[in-house]
């Protein structure tokens, strides 16, 4: 039995908005793979739930006439990966969400829940940043559209108001045509593991495939919220696809735009190393997918020194770790005390707020 006051199955998005508006203490539930886990840990217990689990109006992927793609917030990860539209136009997103948890979780969890939960570790988030996804919310005052770059305000916190329901995500044709990308998730296990770090790169090459016409770089778990690295992108634009120096400048700039921290999963230093290395690899993959020639892999080890200099202190980083640093000690304690620490810690971190509101930051 879950410790909830009641559960109301909404008849429509509008009905869910109304029900949420009536009860300021109510919580919205979709696939439940975050909410129900938190409830098992006693978080948010005793409240009424408003469920949108059965709403077909917010499920499915659709290619619109103007070439934009609309992804219903209630679409499960499996349905996204198997969608012919996604496979043809944004395979990167299908692959990214195929790294979430395991098969059963991917059949239950939704992309709306993944984004609205606000975790920096959400496996769809960095890719959605590189797609410049627009988030369509419906609330008591009607509909509004929020660019994903303005959606996150802190660990586990988004601009979504209590009675707002995310209906769908819009990916513009401009972010699809001619773009190719790769998401790389680094975790201790290949499955059932929250990302230690996630890196998403998308590129658009010149028609002769020699130049990087445009590039987008975003990370999960590199800061308290997912982050986009605009400075790094600006450096790479217009450079040759196989220019090693350009790639190293790109990586160096990215390191000034992130703000990772130490947690029981990994130290800050290791995360910085991952931020650099995954950017190189994801970029090389994206360039190859786009039909270009990537810089030599050799550059990868040559620049090991980059991660050592503590560039994460750079103050230009928008997202700060204020509230995210308090509990890594608690996690360490768990690790030191019990042999089965990782399971406990896993469970703790999946319950949400502990690790600064995300699962891991």
């Amino acid at each position, binding site marked *: *039995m*879950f*410790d*909830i006051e*009641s*559960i109301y*199955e909404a008849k429509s998005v509008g009905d869910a908005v109304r029900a949420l508006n009536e009860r300021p203490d109510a919580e919205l539930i979709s696939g*439940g*793979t975050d909410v*129900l*886990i938190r409830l*098992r840990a006693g978080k948010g217990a005793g409240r009424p739930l408003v*469920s949108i*689990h*059965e709403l077909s109006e917010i499920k499915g992927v659709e290619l619109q006439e103007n070439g934009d793609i609309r992804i219903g917030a209630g679409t499960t990860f*499996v349905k996204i990966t198997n969608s012919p539209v996604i496979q043809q136009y944004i395979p990167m997103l299908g692959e990214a969400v195929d790294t979430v*948890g*395991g*098969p*059963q*979780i991917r*059949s*239950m969890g939704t992309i709306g829940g993944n984004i609205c939960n606000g975790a920096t570790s959400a496996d769809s988030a960095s890719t959605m940043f590189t797609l410049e996804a627009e988030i369509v919310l419906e609330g008591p005052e009607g509909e509004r559209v929020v660019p994903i770059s303005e959606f996150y305000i802190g660990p586990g916190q988004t601009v979504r108001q209590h009675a707002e329901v995310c209906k769908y995500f819009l990916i513009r044709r401009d972010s699809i045509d001619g773009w190719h990308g790769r998401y790389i998730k680094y975790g201790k296990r*290949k*499955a*059932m593991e929250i990302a230690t770090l996630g890196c998403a790169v998308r590129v658009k090459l010149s028609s002769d495939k020699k130049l990087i016409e445009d590039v987008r770089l975003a990370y999960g778990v590199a800061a308290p919220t997912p982050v986009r690295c605009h400075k790094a992108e600006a450096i790479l634009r217009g450079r040759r696809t196989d220019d090693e120096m350009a790639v190293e400048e790109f990586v160096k700039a990215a390191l000034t735009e992130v703000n990772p921290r130490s947690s029981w999963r990994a130290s800050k230093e290791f995360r910085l190393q991952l931020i650099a290395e995954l950017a190189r690899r994801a970029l090389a993959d994206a360039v190859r997918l786009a039909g270009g020639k990537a810089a030599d892999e050799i550059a990868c080890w040559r620049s090991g020194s980059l991660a050592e200099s503590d560039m994460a202190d750079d103050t230009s980083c928008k997202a700060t770790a204020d509230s995210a640093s308090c509990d890594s000690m608690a996690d360490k304690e768990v690790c030191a005390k019990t042999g089965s620490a990782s*399971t406990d810690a*896993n*469970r703790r971190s*999946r319950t949400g707020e502990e690790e600064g509101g995300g699962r891991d930051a």
Partner: protein
Amino acid sequence: MLEIISMRVNGKDVELAIDPRESLLDTLRRRLGLTSVKKGCEVGECGACTVLVEGEAIDSCIYLTVWAKGKSILTVEGLKSPTGELSPIQQAFIDEAAVQCGFCIPGIIMSAVEIVGAGRRYERDELRKLLSGHLCRCTGYEKIIDAVEKAVEAKLASQRAG
């Protein structure tokens, strides 16, 4: 407060009173006596509670019973033939000695039902990925993958024959 719901469980329509706060896992075990559905972690980590809802493997410990209204649920109890024989998938687990203590097995078998039902061949690594939502503390997984591979082959052979 109890609520009356109806769903289809292992091919039979059932109508029963449930508490809207309960998980499908508790409904299946406690109200319907389907104890093949195991309670392991209760947080979606171990897969012991896996059942099929509308043909899709899910963790019943984090699935509210009210969501199953009007849907079709399948558990291991629903796999045996009308005359009581084991299904080819269950038999493959026995033939390959894939079962030790057995606690994880009903859940894995339900994932295997979905995998085998796809009617195509998988690489071993693909099978590992498809079974990665399950924890087994005994077998080391190799025999389990052998069994699923065998069940897939048997299904493909029967498709060719049929």
